[in-house]
């Protein structure tokens, strides 16, 4: 990807011109792709999960893929979003459309707190600090059992009907549910695209590439890191709200560090630094788990082996590798 070769772009073949147009509308194209998902996957519940984890991983990718900050505690935002949405609906009696923004706002504040502490460190120390603070959130949820249900998880906030401009939608119907939740995902995708297209998006990528140089250019690196941490947490919290609405429960496992690990695995599998990679990663991981565990109780061996193979042979993930291969194919033509 050198910059010198841009003065005279060769005329593109038709197919590639089409893709170039599609690329200019990545939000729309991503949404259309996701809209087809329920018909492509073996079950609607799986499709909803791909949507949810796709959004969570996308939020994480903003931090990890685009800014280069490897957080090990992203489950904190996923879980906080889910818990607060559930508590707001079940305990405070708020309607879902008020509960979701509230949950996202609180998660952003949590992002500010965790971000302020953790972005003072770098490298492995950053990862460890985020992990420790996320575990803190886990234990708060475990101990505050009168609020969160503790070990048994949060229950009692089933949303079975949604009032959309006067039309009563049966939210228990899997397809209705999918498309309502897809609206949340669409907002998250649009926000992410706006962030990445803005000058701020360029700055965080500059920080990833060379922090010293970004600082030398006059950017306030610390503040940018904090802001991206908050934005990343907010987007992941949208995924958390979707999960709460989807399952009608919030299991305590959602805050466990294994969930954070799963988010990292998904982003590596799909390909960090790519816009649609998180969804590909979430889909591949969940489909593998879902399908293989139907065949054998030893699914962990199969999924683990495949993951190792990907890390060894496709370090840029499925989508990242795909994107790498494409320009070569174009040059050969």
């Amino acid at each position: 990807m050198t910059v010198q070769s841009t003065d005279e772009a060769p005329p593109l073949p038709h197919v590639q011109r089409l893709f170039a147009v599609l690329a200019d509308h990545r939000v729309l194209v991503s949404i259309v792709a996701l809209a087809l998902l329920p018909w492509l996957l073996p079950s609607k519940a799986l499709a909803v999960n791909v949507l949810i984890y796709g959004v969570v991983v996308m939020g994480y990718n903003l931090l990890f893929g685009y800014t280069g900050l490897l957080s090990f505690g992203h489950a904190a935002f996923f879980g906080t979003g889910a818990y607060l949405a559930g508590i707001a609906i079940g305990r405070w009696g708020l309607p879902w459309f008020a509960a979701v923004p509230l949950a996202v706002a609180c998660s952003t504040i949590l992002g500010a707190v965790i971000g302020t502490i953790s972005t003072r460190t770098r490298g492995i120390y950053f990862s460890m600090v985020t992990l420790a603070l996320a575990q803190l959130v886990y234990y708060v949820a475990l101990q505050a059992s009168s609020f969160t249900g503790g070990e048994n998880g949060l229950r009692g906030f089933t949303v079975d009907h949604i009032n959309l401009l006067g039309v009563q939608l049966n939210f228990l119907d899997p397809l209705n549910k999918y498309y309502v939740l897809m609206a949340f995902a669409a907002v998250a995708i649009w926000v992410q695209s706006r962030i990445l297209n803005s000058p701020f998006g360029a700055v965080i990528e500059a920080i990833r590439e060379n922090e010293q140089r970004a600082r030398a250019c006059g950017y306030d690196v610390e503040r940018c890191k904090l802001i991206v941490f908050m934005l990343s947490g907010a987007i992941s919290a949208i995924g958390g709200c979707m999960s709460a609405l989807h399952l009608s429960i919030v299991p305590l496992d959602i805050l466990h560090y294994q969930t954070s690990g799963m988010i990292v695995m998904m982003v590596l599998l799909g390909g960090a630094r790519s816009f649609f990679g998180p969804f590909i990663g979430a889909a591949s991981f969940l489909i593998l788990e879902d399908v293989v565990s139907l065949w054998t109780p030893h699914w962990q061996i199969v999924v683990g082996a495949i993951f190792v193979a990907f890390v060894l042979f496709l370090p840029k993930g499925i989508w990242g590798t795909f994107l790498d291969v494409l320009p070569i194919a174009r040059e050969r033509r």
Partner: protein
Amino acid sequence: MPRRDTKLRRTGVSRRTALMGMSAGLASLAMPRLGRAADDTIRIGFPTPLTGPFAAEARDQVKCAELAVKLVNDKGGVAGRKVELLVRDDKLNAGEAATRTLELIEKDKVHAVVGALSSAVQLAVNEVTRARSVIYVSISQSDTINEAKDFSKYTFHEALNPHMTTGAVARQTMKKGMKVAHLVADYAYGHEMLRGFKRAQGTIGAETVGEILHPFGAADYSTFMPRLMSLRPDVLCISNFGRDQANAIKQAVDFGIKQQMKIVVPVILHNQRLAVGPDVFEGVVGGANYYWGLETQNKTAAEFNAAFRAANGGAIPTDYGAYGYSGVGSLLQAMQAAGGTDTDKVIAALEALKYDLTKGPQQYRKCDHQSVQSVLVLESKKKSAMANDNDLFAIVASDAGTEDLLRSCSELGHPT
């Protein structure tokens, strides 16, 4: 023709290329839908933790549930329809279990769900089935699921509950004035067992001298043992499950605790006793829903054992396995009585059902759908007293199944 600055052009390329393969990516996601059974089949969903620390118990449950289905199918099915069991791995994770249950209901169109093996998981399954009006027979110990807050008219609790097992064990092992110490796994199961023991102690008049919580899945209990010994209790109650139970008892024995006090557990697990051996478990007393040795005194148990042996190469059924058999079996009997799978009729049939599948008469109490059943109290035999490798326990008591074993409906918050 550069219409953008170089920075945006760079993202433009990656964006374009990102979309190039979208169709290919989606094509790779597409996969043949897994086949669904013919529509007149009765389908029962069975989420259970085939992976994770309770995998041994889960595998036994699957074997027994399959046996219950096979026996019914051999006799021509339920109301002339074949029965199919759809086993799913819930990975001992409540979120996963809820997703699997949603799949079973939405995609596989199951007529009922049986299963789950931990408190959090069964409450998750309960929430999903309740919202969708699907019958659920829970086969894991829980007190919460019977309480009015979590009650669902679609949910039946076939397993014993902590109140029942701790009560039976305490009545057998404790006397007025005894000192009792508790080692408790710090999660819902442990807390419910502790609550049950303390309640029973209150009636008996035994005094609690200490409670120590340990994290779920702890491998090392050595730090707790000196503290427990310093409390000088007469009885030590170890309230944990699965491998935790085996590890905790093993280390208690290493510390010589048995010479000082009696070790009791709310539920004594067949598989953990097999895993650790007779020397460690010798003399440990615990409650159980089932033990194969019941066959000498109970005709139903003998029949159940015989059927299980025939289907599994001479192996014997375990305690948690028996839940799989009685959970699925009672549901199928109710469906037979209701003449099909109509939800309201099956609920009415389950409420009216008197069944005897593994160990004597059982029935579901109407107010909270808890199965009223006998509770066994078992003592682990020493090696020299064992007649063969499967002769693990002596049955020291069998409390007959009456409502006295349960908390009252009004106490659980149900309208009476």
